[in-house]
């Protein structure tokens, strides 16, 4: 598989779009999973998948075979996700910020709120996990997702995101602390 991928990368670099199509077909699902963990919603994840491959295509000549092609894609995807969730957070902060008056205006508008009836236990835990992940800062979430779900080492993550090992370590520690704070009460009830 890796040899196959290597030659597809070579051919894609030489401008063979069929070869690039192969790479897209091969890696899309993995990138989607990563992107969903990062952004927490499907539409953003689709956006990340698409943008990742478009960027990868433009930057193919910058890819060095030192890392595997999938790691390289992960790097592009996680950096773009990071930008996207930062933008979203900023957006939300702005909605939340401001005077009471503004809040009143915004709150007078009915938004879709989750109904109380769908609080079956399993769903509740999963919802709480999603909420807890949403509480993380973009940097914390990115580092945590790459470590926890994708199994990248702290050193690799630091290099990918350009944040260095120490900062990455602290992002992960803070992420775990926040997750514990938000999830321990829920998990506690379960046992």
């Amino acid at each position, binding site marked *: 598989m890796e040899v196959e991928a290597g030659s597809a990368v070579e051919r894609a670099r030489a401008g063979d779009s069929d070869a690039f199509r192969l790479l897209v*077909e091969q890696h899309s699902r993995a990138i989607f999973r990563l992107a969903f963990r990062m952004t927490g919603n499907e539409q953003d994840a689709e956006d990340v998948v698409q943008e990742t*491959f478009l960027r990868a295509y433009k930057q193919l000549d910058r890819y060095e075979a030192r890392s595997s092609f999938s790691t390289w894609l992960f790097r592009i995807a996680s950096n773009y996700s990071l930008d996207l969730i930062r933008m979203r957070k900023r957006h939300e902060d702005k909605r939340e910020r*401001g005077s009471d008056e503004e809040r009143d205006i915004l709150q007078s508008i009915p938004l879709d709120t989750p109904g109380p009836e769908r609080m079956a236990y399993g769903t509740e835990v*999963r919802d709480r*996990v999603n909420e807890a992940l949403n509480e993380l800062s973009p940097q914390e979430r990115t580092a945590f997702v790459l470590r926890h779900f994708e199994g990248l080492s702290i050193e690799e993550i630091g290099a990918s995101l350009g944040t260095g090992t120490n900062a990455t*370590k602290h992002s992960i520690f803070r992420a775990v*602390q926040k997750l514990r704070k938000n999830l321990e009460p829920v998990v506690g009830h379960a046992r």
Partner: protein
Amino acid sequence: MNHISEEQLVLLYYGESTEAAAIDQHLVECETCRKEFRALQLVLNTVDSAPVPERGADYGKAVWQRIEKRIGGRKQRRFAQWWIWAPAMAALLVSAFLAGRLTHKPVGPEVAKNQQQIRERILMVAVGDHLERSQMVLAELSNAPDHKGKLDITDERQMASELLDDNRLYRQTARSTGDTAVANVLDDLERVLLEIAHSPTEVSSSQLDDLRQQIESRGLLFKVRVMGSQAREQEVAPAPQKNGKKL
């Protein structure tokens, strides 16, 4: 050995501890730390229960279909077309737009004025992001190459329906703050977004023409663009801020 720090336990959990042997030994001997580690494991294992929506075996093919057209011909067609007709309307629209923005500035006491400014600014910043995304959808359709068969607009549809919710929120907010100029543009935008969201995933060239006409007859793309950059200018301009969190 003292008790094990949380950070050490996290590293141990992920197999990145440099003192794994010593920590393991301590865990055997110390119930406090053992409990602590178990609590940590429980939470981190629970995180795995967050579901990821399934994507089928054909997903990669679908992704390719979506990006294929953007890999080849994208550069030439993007933003090529509307510059031809836009400049003619530019002066008119910009002045109408600015007039609308200026007339409803409050003349009351300083405090009220500040509040009004903060409120406007918050709205405009959020609206700016929103308009930027909307503009991409409109431009994509407006500039789609002429074609004989059907054109796949799955992407544009998806984005349009996502944008609709935000659009409603901003339109209602703009109305209630008396920001008529903004509300009117959002009103027009909403109609077109709705149209796009409800289009079939593949449109014929006549259906595409209809959509284009809707976009162009209202000068929508241009208005959205002008207002988007106005909003971003407000974002950059210094304004009173209370608990300004910056990233």
